[in-house]
Every structure is written in structure tokens, then in C-alpha cells.
């Protein structure tokens, strides 16, 4: 690791002030950042330890929802009684990711901000527009099995690798953000991550001097919640395709269908048109096919990841069929 100054933030104010430094980065669980620092993909001059800044609580919100502190670990969230009973898709998504050791350190805020696992991004000897703007994209025409098929650009085809945020997107959760000047703002998880476009280094909407303080979940909704993750081995692997689904049936008709997709894009993918298509319709294989048509209408494979397009279609079929069966 390159040398850095280590600072410990004791309050949220401390954290925001310290991370506003030009060469500063916040560290919480560290499981992603320290990995990248060892590879010299990240070389902060100042590392701000925010673990003791005091926003790890998980608490009921006034509107019947749940407020998950940014420093709550993935484990604390997944085993929280209300997450297990009211937001099972979130518990399932977290438990499908990484290992117990990593989930014990990984935090809500850090997990939202985790970087792609693109091989070219993680190897400083390779070109990567995300890590070194203008150097090119090694994954296009390269090793691209894990890469995106939706929302890509000529600059970058990396995926957002996480599971938790896919469930948060389906749940329509909100990211709470505080800044160094004391201002606070809220961003829906669905708008938090960016597509690569011609600024692939920008992965989310956080600005310098901003700190995620919490993620808030709306009051629980009726229906079945599922998380289906397709991966190359049955544990401790990133998603090739994943789907978080919340489906409610009423009188033989789909009354609610909130779906978000992992492994397909630079962000958890959410397409409101799919909900509009499904809601009010009677379930059928033709309907699921039409939903997959919408999801994949602009999909583009890059050789090694071409398989993700039919895999996403089949996974969507399987998830909808299971959700409808479970909800009936």
C-alpha cells in the first residue's frame, strides 16, 4: 500500500469535514477499499476511518418503514428481525453475497459505493477508462464474461457487482446523504448509481464532502419477495444475473410487480415499464416473455457475455413463475 495519513472521525460532522479533503477517502468496513489499495487501484493520501462516527443504528421510521444506518454491517441488516420479516428480499440478497467474514465487515454505505470487479479496472497494468480516463477499455473485445449488456457505453462495460442494492432498488429505498456544510439530501436508490456514458469514473451521485448516513426503506408492502441469483458456483461468487422481485397477486391478476436486476448493468437495473406491463395482467408465459422483451430490447452482448441475454430472459421467467405460484 502507498503511504497515507490515517484519521479517525468521531462524529458525522468530523467525517464530512475530513472526507471533503481533496485526497481523502472514507473507510468503513474496508473490505473493498483495502483490497483496491493493495492493488494500488486506490491511492488515497488520507484515509478517514468513519467506523466510530456513530451512524450504525437500525431503527423503525415514523412512516412504518425502517432506517438502516450507513455503518450498519451487512450482517446486522440481514439478521435484523424486521428485515427478516418485512423485507425478506433484502435479507436474501445480502445473504447471497460474499462470505460471512466479509458481510460481518461490509457496511450499508460502503456496499452501495463498492467498485466494479472488472478485471481491467483491478489491474493497473491494463487500460481502463474508469481508473485512468482516456486509457481505453480492455473489456470491450477482451475478457468480458462478467460484464454488462444493458446501459453500456463505448467507454465502459463494467457492472455494479453488489446484491444488496438490487434488493434496495426493488424496495424503492432512499439513500440519505449529509454534506460538509450541514446540508442533507435524499436520493432514491434507483437514481443513486450512474450509467458509464462518457464519465465511467463517476459511479454514483455522491459529491466531494458528502457522506451517506442511512438508507431508508418505505413501509412494508404486501406480496411475495424473492431474490434469485445465478452465478458460477453456489456460494461466494458475483452474480451473472440476479433478480429482486416483489410480486402481489389479487384475484388471479398481478397487482404489484417491482423488479430490479443485478449483473446486467453499471447499476441495479430498474425499468418501470416492466411493472406497468405486468400490473393488472393475468400471469402467463407470453406475459413473462413480453416483460423480458422490454427488459432486453436494447441489450447488447460483447462476445463472452452474450449468454447473459438469454440467461436474463430465462431467469425472469423462472422468478415470475415462482413468485406468482408463491403469491397465489
Amino acid at each position: 500500500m502507498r503511504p497515507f495519513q490515517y484519521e479517525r472521525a468521531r462524529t458525522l460532522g468530523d467525517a464530512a469535514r475530513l472526507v471533503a479533503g481533496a485526497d481523502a477517502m472514507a473507510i468503513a468496513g474496508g473490505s473493498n477499499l483495502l483490497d483496491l489499495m493493495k492493488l494500488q487501484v486506490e491511492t488515497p493520501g488520507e484515509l478517514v476511518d468513519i467506523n466510530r462516527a456513530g451512524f450504525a443504528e437500525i431503527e423503525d421510521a415514523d412512516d412504518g418503514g425502517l432506517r438502516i444506518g450507513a455503518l450498519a454491517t451487512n450482517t446486522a441488516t440481514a439478521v435484523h428481525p424486521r428485515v427478516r420479516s418485512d423485507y425478506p428480499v433484502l435479507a436474501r440478497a445480502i445473504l447471497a453475497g460474499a462470505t460471512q467474514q466479509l458481510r460481518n465487515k461490509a457496511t450499508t454505505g460502503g456496499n452501495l459505493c463498492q467498485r466494479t470487479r472488472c478485471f481491467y479496472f483491478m489491474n493497473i497494468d491494463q487500460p481502463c477508462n474508469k481508473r485512468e480516463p482516456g486509457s481505453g477499455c480492455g473489456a470491450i473485445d477482451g475478457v468480458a464474461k462478467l460484464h454488462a449488456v444493458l446501459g453500456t457505453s463505448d467507454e465502459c462495460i463494467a457492472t455494479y457487482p453488489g446484491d444488496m442494492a438490487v434488493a434496495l432498488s426493488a424496495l424503492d429505498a432512499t439513500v440519505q446523504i449529509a454534506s460538509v456544510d450541514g446540508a442533507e439530501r435524499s436520493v432514491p436508490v434507483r437514481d443513486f448509481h450512474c450509467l458509464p456514458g462518457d464519465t465511467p469514473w463517476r459511479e454514483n451521485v455522491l459529491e466531494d464532502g458528502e457522506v451517506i448516513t442511512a438508507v431508508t426503506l418505505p413501509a412494508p408492502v404486501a406480496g411475495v419477495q424473492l431474490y434469485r441469483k445465478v452465478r458460477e458456483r453456489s456460494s461466494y461468487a458475483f452474480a451473472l444475473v440476479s433478480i429482486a422481485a416483489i410480486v402481489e397477486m389479487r384475484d388471479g391478476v398481478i397487482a404489484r410487480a417491482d423488479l430490479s436486476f443485478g449483473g446486467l448493468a453499471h447499476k441495479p437495473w430498474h425499468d418501470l415499464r416492466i411493472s406497468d406491463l405486468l400490473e393488472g395482467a393475468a400471469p402467463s408465459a407470453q406475459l413473462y416473455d413480453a416483460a423480458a422483451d422490454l427488459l432486453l430490447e436494447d441489450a447488447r452482448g460483447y462476445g463472452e457475455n452474450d449468454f447473459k441475454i438469454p440467461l436474463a430472459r430465462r431467469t425472469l421467467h423462472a422468478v415470475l413463475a415462482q413468485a406468482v405460484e408463491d403469491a397465489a
Partner: protein
Amino acid sequence: MGETISVNGTQRSLPDDPRITLLDFLRRDLGLTGSKKGCDHGQCGACTVIVNGIRINSCLTLAAMHEGDSVTTIEGLGTPEDPSPLQRAFVDQDGFQCGYCTPGQICSATAMLEELANDWPSDASNDLEGKIEISGEEIRERMSGNLCRCGAYANIVAAIRDAATETSA
């Protein structure tokens, strides 16, 4: 004595260089070489230790981040004369070949039995709530962060199952 950390019940001074990982601190500064450096990237689990009752990869955390914390390594779990139930079960079931991953396996499994006792669900659990039934599938999923390149998995699972049965009996 500046900032301290408790390691196997003894107070130790934290290192000055913030770059030192908890793993390097344990091995290099304290001479506790039971915890192993396999991949140094959180992928193999050979460095697993227990911090404040929770298992973590000691290679992916800085010693400086653990002021006031309480760390247990394989050296703190038992001795050849007085092994912990899991240490004894690994010997009884021949749960290793070269032994390199074993300290991490045993630290990991020690914390895992606590998680099971608290009925924390895993990806392999049919239900998120209620009592967790200990099964081979549960053990394998919960131990997926600890690789054994010799492939002693069958006996590792058997050892953990023995210790789990003994602990819950």
C-alpha cells in the same frame, strides 16, 4: 502505552504505521503466526480471526482501526494440551491435510457455531426466521469463505458437525 488492542486477553500497543493490516500486526509484530496469509485479498479465509465475537478477514482490515477491540486468534482458542472442542474435532475427524487453512477454518467455525446458536439465517436456510437445523448444506454455505486447496472439505464438515452436536447437546 498509547492506543491498545486486546489480543487473546493481553493488552498490546497498536503499531505506528497505519498501513499495517491486522493480519501483519498479529503475525509480524506479535509473532502469532497461527493466522495465515493465503491470498491477502479476503478470498481464502486463512487469516480469519474473531474480533469482538465476530469472524472477519484480518487481511482486509487495518490494525489501527481496532483500537480497544478484543481479538481472538487460533492461539487463544486452545492449546495442544487443552484444545477447544473444534480443535479436538478437527484432529478426531482428520479435518486437514497440509494444515495451512486450518487455523482460519477453526476460527471461522468457532464464530459460526455462535451464529447458529443465535439462529442467524444463511443463503442455505429455507426460512429466514426460526430455529436453524444444522445440516451439511448449512455448514458448507456458512464456511464458503474458507478455502482448503487440499480439498479436505468432507472431513472439515464432519469435524464441524461433531463440534456443533457436542456444543448444542
